[in-house]
């Protein structure tokens, strides 16, 4: 590093995440993968990274550490990442049911992605893992949070990411025009690298 700064034109800026200010809980039964995720998070600048090796200790870590972001595997002993998500997404709980949950998994089949979405997962990241992809998911949950939807059968982040007016599928929500929520534009300005 030569210490030379790049000065951007006036009014132009990029969004960065101050990882010092974020607390993570990483839940994965594979110690190698936990170490990789921890290495990446520390590389981003995070200081507080707590680990758990199964769903039960993950839930305990979530309750104890009150993380800002949860990163969880899917397939784990005792209870899996999907069940863990459903336990965290309890409206009115004393913990933080709105916590962003990033599911990092080797599963990538359509039915799995839909099941994760319907359990209340915020972001889905299929392995193999890269620093760039993990950073982008974290950037997205920090800079571009979605409102939560509560129905009789669902509590979790708004599953409608697409505000395309051409949608012609069945309308599952009733009650007014305020049905589709445009995403905050902040993420559009964010760049991972120069």
């Amino acid at each position, binding site marked *: 590093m030569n210490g030379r700064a*790049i000065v951007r034109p006036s009014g132009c800026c990029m969004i960065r995440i101050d990882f010092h200010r974020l607390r993570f809980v990483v839940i994965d039964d594979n110690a190698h993968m936990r170490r990789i995720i921890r290495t990446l998070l520390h590389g981003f600048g995070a200081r507080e990274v707590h680990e758990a090796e199964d769903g039960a200790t993950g839930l305990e870590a979530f309750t104890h550490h009150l993380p800002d972001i949860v990163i969880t595997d899917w397939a784990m002993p005792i209870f899996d990442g999907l069940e863990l998500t459903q336990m965290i997404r309890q409206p009115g709980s004393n913990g933080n049911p709105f916590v962003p949950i990033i599911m990092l998994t*080797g599963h990538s089949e*359509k039915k799995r992605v839909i099941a994760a979405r319907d359990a209340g997962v915020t972001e889905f990241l299929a392995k193999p893992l890269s620093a760039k992809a993990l950073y982008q998911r974290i950037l997205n949950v920090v800079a571009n949070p979605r409102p939560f939807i509560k129905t009789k059968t669902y509590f979790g982040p708004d599953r409608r990411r697409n505000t395309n007016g051409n949608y012609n599928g069945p309308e599952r929500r009733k009650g007014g025009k305020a049905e589709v929520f445009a995403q905050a534009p902040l993420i559009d300005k964010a760049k991972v690298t120069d």
Partner: protein
Amino acid sequence: MVRPKNDRPNTAIYDDHEVITPPNRLVKAIKKVTVTVPGDDPVERAETALSKLSSEFTSWMSAECDRLDAARNAVKTFGFGKKTLDELFHAAHDIKGDASTFGYAAVAPAAESLCRVLEYSPEASRIPLPLIDQHVDAIRAIVREYARPDAEQIAHALTKKLWEVSEEFLTAANKDRPDYLAGILSPPIAPNGNS
């Protein structure tokens, strides 16, 4: 836990759903940068940290293969019970997910093929043990010979054959479930960790 008044979510109530906008507690971590310093890219820093860890990847991959071998032996010794099946699936699934990160990308498709056989067979006890053996032995061989210059070609040829045999088996095993078969043969839709 009592939340401060300004920390409460806003809720809009509709006929059959509520829209809740929680306060963005993570906004504290957003910073706008107008001046960047070379070498201060967080992704580059993380990649550098990961590359320092890479000297351990060979032994990690070897450990994952030993775990897979032990899981295969448990199936052969104790049969296909929930515990033995779960462990074999998880061992293969971890290799599928981790191999590329560990620098063994050519191993992942063979592990994925084994996962598919285990997951999509209607009855695990009817999976031919030689099919399990072929997968486990192929995965171990690819890892063992990964330093060879032609390792990727060998891995590709082995994997192609494994997929053909596995798809043939799954097609026959699920012949009475055409809808299910169509679902398992559809391509994945999730973005992977490189995108």
